[in-house]
C-alpha cells in the first residue's frame, strides 16, 4: 500500500503492526473477506463469526480496558489493529455492542450489568442496537418522547424509535427514554437496557436508498423492564450519551475503511479499460485520485495527532473536533469517485452487475448517510464554531 502515514509510528508500533497483520491474515476466512468487500450490510452470522474468531485471541473488545477483557492496547495500537482489519477486508465489528454499549457499561454500568452483558458482547453471542433517535427527535435528540414510567420492581417504556440499525436481529437495545417531564429536556433522560424480544416490542423494516435493509422502526408499547435495566443513575442518561460521543470521535472518521476502499478503487481503475488505456490512465482521473490521496493523508495525520496525544497521556487538541466532518466527507468523495471509475456499469440494478464492481453502487448510495448520522455535519460545524472557536 503506497499511501500511508507511517512517520508517526515508533519501531515498537511497527513491529506490533507486522505481528497483527500476519495474525489477521491467518485468522480471516476468505469467504468472510469476500462478502465484506461485496456487501454493505453484513449478516449477523458473518459479524458474529468474526467476533468469535477475534475473541478467541482476546482481540474482539480491542478498545476496552484490560479490566473489562480488552487486550490493554494503547490508542495507537488499536488504530493499527483496525487498520490491519480493514486492509484485510475483515468484517466491521458491530458498532453498537463493541463500540457503544461496552464502553458505556464499563464507564457507568453496575458490576452486575458488566458481568451480565460484557462477555456476550465480546464473544459475539449477543447483538445490540441503539434506540436513541425518534421520528420527532433527530438532531434535536433531547426532545425525544419515549417515556419510562416507574412501576413496582421496574419501569414501563413506551414510545417509538426510528432508524434503529440492526434492530431486526439485535437481542438488546440501549434505549434513551424520558424519566422526568419536569426537568429541562436534557436533564430528564435515562438509559435503559431493553430486551428486543420482550412483549410490547414491534419491529418494522425500513428499506434505504441502496435497496438494503439495515434500519428499522421500533415500537415500544408498554414494555416492562426490570429495575436493573437502568444504566447508571436516573435522569443522567444525556450525560452518558454525550460522554461517549466525545470519547469515540476518532472512530467516526472511518479512516481505515476509507484507506482500504481507496486502494481497492485504485486497483479497479488500473484494471478497467478506459477510452485510452485503463481508466487510471486518464489524466483527469489521476488528478482526482491524487486530490483524494492528499485528503486521506490529511485525515490519517489528523487522527494520528489525536491518538498520539492520547497514547502519550496528553489531552488531544481542538483538532479532535474535525475528524467526523472531514472523515465523512472523504468517505463520500471516494464513493463518488468510484461511480465515475465504474461508469455505466454502476448504473444498472445492483444484482445485474457482478464480479469486480459488486457492492460499489450500493455503498455509494448508502454513503449519503455518513454526513447525517452520528451528529450531522451541520450540527458538528455548529459545535466547532461555538465550542472550539468561541463564536457567539
Amino acid at each position: 500500500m503506497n499511501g500511508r502515514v507511517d512517520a508517526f509510528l515508533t519501531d515498537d508500533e511497527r513491529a506490533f503492526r507486522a505481528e497483527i497483520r500476519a495474525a489477521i491474515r491467518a485468522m480471516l476466512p476468505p469467504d468472510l473477506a469476500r462478502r465484506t468487500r461485496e456487501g454493505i450490510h453484513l449478516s449477523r452470522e458473518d459479524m458474529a463469526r468474526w467476533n468469535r474468531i477475534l475473541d478467541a485471541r482476546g482481540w474482539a473488545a480491542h478498545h476496552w480496558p484490560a479490566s473489562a477483557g480488552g487486550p490493554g492496547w494503547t490508542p495507537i495500537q488499536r488504530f493499527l489493529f483496525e487498520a490491519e482489519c480493514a486492509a484485510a477486508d475483515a468484517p466491521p465489528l458491530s458498532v453498537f455492542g463493541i463500540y457503544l454499549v461496552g464502553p458505556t457499561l464499563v464507564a457507568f454500568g453496575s458490576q452486575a450489568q458488566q458481568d451480565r452483558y460484557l462477555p456476550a458482547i465480546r464473544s459475539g453471542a449477543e447483538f445490540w442496537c441503539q434506540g436513541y433517535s425518534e421520528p420527532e427527535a433527530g438532531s434535536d435528540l433531547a426532545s425525544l418522547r419515549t417515556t419510562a414510567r416507574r412501576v413496582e420492581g421496574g419501569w414501563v417504556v413506551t414510545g417509538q424509535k426510528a432508524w434503529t440499525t440492526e434492530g431486526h436481529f439485535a437481542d438488546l437495545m440501549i434505549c434513551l427514554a424520558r424519566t422526568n417531564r419536569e426537568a429541562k429536556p436534557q436533564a430528564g433522560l435515562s438509559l435503559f437496557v431493553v430486551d428486543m424480544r420482550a412483549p410490547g416490542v414491534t419491529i418494522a423494516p425500513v428499506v434505504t436508498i441502496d435497496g438494503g435493509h439495515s434500519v428499522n422502526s421500533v415500537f415500544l408499547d408498554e414494555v416492562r423492564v426490570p429495575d436493573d435495566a437502568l444504566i447508571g443513575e436516573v435522569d443522567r442518561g444525556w450525560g452518558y450519551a454525550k460522554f461517549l460521543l466525545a470519547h469515540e470521535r476518532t472512530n467516526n472518521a472511518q479512516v481505515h475503511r476509507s484507506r482500504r476502499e481507496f486502494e481497492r478503487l485504485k486497483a479497479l481503475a488500473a484494471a478497467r479499460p478506459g477510452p485510452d488505456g485503463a481508466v487510471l490512465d486518464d489524466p483527469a482521473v489521476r488528478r482526482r485520485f491524487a486530490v483524494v490521496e492528499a485528503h486521506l493523508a490529511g485525515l490519517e495525520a489528523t487522527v494520528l495527532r489525536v491518538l498520539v496525544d492520547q497514547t502519550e497521556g496528553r489531552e488531544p487538541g481542538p483538532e479532535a473536533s474535525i475528524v467526523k466532518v472531514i472523515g465523512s466527507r472523504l468517505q463520500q468523495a471516494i464513493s463518488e469517485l468510484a461511480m465515475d471509475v465504474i461508469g455505466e456499469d454502476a448504473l444498472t440494478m445492483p444484482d445485474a452487475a457482478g464480479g469486480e464492481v459488486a457492492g460499489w453502487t450500493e455503498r455509494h448510495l448508502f454513503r449519503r448517510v455518513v454526513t447525517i448520522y452520528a451528529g450531522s455535519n451541520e450540527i458538528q460545524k455548529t459545535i466547532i464554531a461555538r465550542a472550539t472557536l468561541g463564536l457567539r
Partner: protein
Amino acid sequence: MRRSPDQRDDDLMLREGARRFLEERCPWTPTLPSPGEEDAVRREMAGLGWFAMGLPEEFGGGGADALQALALVEEAGRVLLRRSLAADVLVVPRLMRRGFAGLTALAPGLAAGAVRFALVSGDPAAGGLSVAPGREGVRLRGGGGLALDAGAATHWLVAAGEGSPNGAALLCVEARPVPERRLIDGRRGAVPPLDGLDLPAGAVLATGHDALAAIDEIRDCAAAALVADAYGALAAGLDLTVGYLNQRRQFGQTLGSFQAVQHLMAEAFCDLETLRSLMLWSAASLDGAPAERRRAAASARVVLGREGLAAASRLIQASGGIAMTEEYRVGHVYKRLQVAAGIDGGTEARIRQLATDTLSPKGRPDDEASAA
C-alpha cells in the same frame, strides 16, 4: 522518538518567546518595513539564537529538531513576516548534516546572522538549470525560477539538473546584485541571473546521486516550511476574524451568532487543522524514508493550495468589506496563501507529482491490482 510539536519542556517556551518577540518587534502593519529595519530584526533573531538553533552541534548549533524550527516559521507566519525564515532556520541547518564542506564553512556566519540563504531552483518552463564545465570550474546554463528573498540573501543554494542523477548538481553561489520583484503579499523575490554564470569548482557542493538526494530533501523541507508559514498566517487570521465576528453587530446581534457565518468559520477551521496535520506529518517524515517524506510534502502542498487558500477566502467572506481593504490583515493572509500556493510550479504541479508517486504508471498494472 518525537511526534508531537508540544512535547518537550522547551517547546512551549520557544513558541511563546518567539510569539512575544515577533509581536513586539515586527507586528504586522500594512506598511512595509525598510530593508534596514528588516536587517536589524534579523540581527536580533540571530542574537536569540534562531539561526544557530537547528545547526548540528559540531558546528556550534543547538541541535534543535525540525518541529522546533517549524514552530519559529509558523510564528513568523502569524505576523506575516516579510522575510522568510525557512532557509535559514530549517533547510540549510538540516542540510549541514550532510557535511558539505562548502556549506559547513558558512555555519558560523549563518548562526551570527551575517550569512543569509535563498533557495533557487530551475524554472521548469525554461528547461531548468544545468551545469557544464566552465572557464573557472563550472558554468551554469538555463534560467532559475522566482526565488523568495534572493535579493536579500548573501548566498544562493542552487539546485540544477533536477530529476536525473547524470546532470544533478547542488551549488552554493555567492549572491550577486539582482533586480528584486515585489510579490503580491509584500514579500520580495528575484530571479537570479544564472545563465552563463562561471563559478569555481568549489561552488559545487554535490553531484550525481548525492546532489539528487540533497535536492529532494531541500524541496521537501521547504514545502514543510511553506505550509507551516501558511498555517501560522491562517491561524492568526482566524483568531482575528473570530474576535471581529464576536464584536461586530448587524441586525441587532453579533455576526458570530449567525449560523451561516459560524459554518463558514467551522469549514475554515477544518481546512486549517487538516493543513497543520499534514505539516506535522511532513515534519515527522523528514527523518524517515524519502518516499514518505516526498508524499507528505506533496500532500501538504496540495491541501495548502486548495483547502488552505479556500480557508483564507472564507475569512474574507465572513469579515465582509473590511477584509477587502489594504489596511486590514485578512486580505494579506489571503495574498500570503496565494503566493504559497502558486510558487514553485504551484498546486497543479504538486497534484501531478502526487499522482505519479501514488498511482501505477500509465500502461503498467498496479501492484495492488495484481495482488488482489
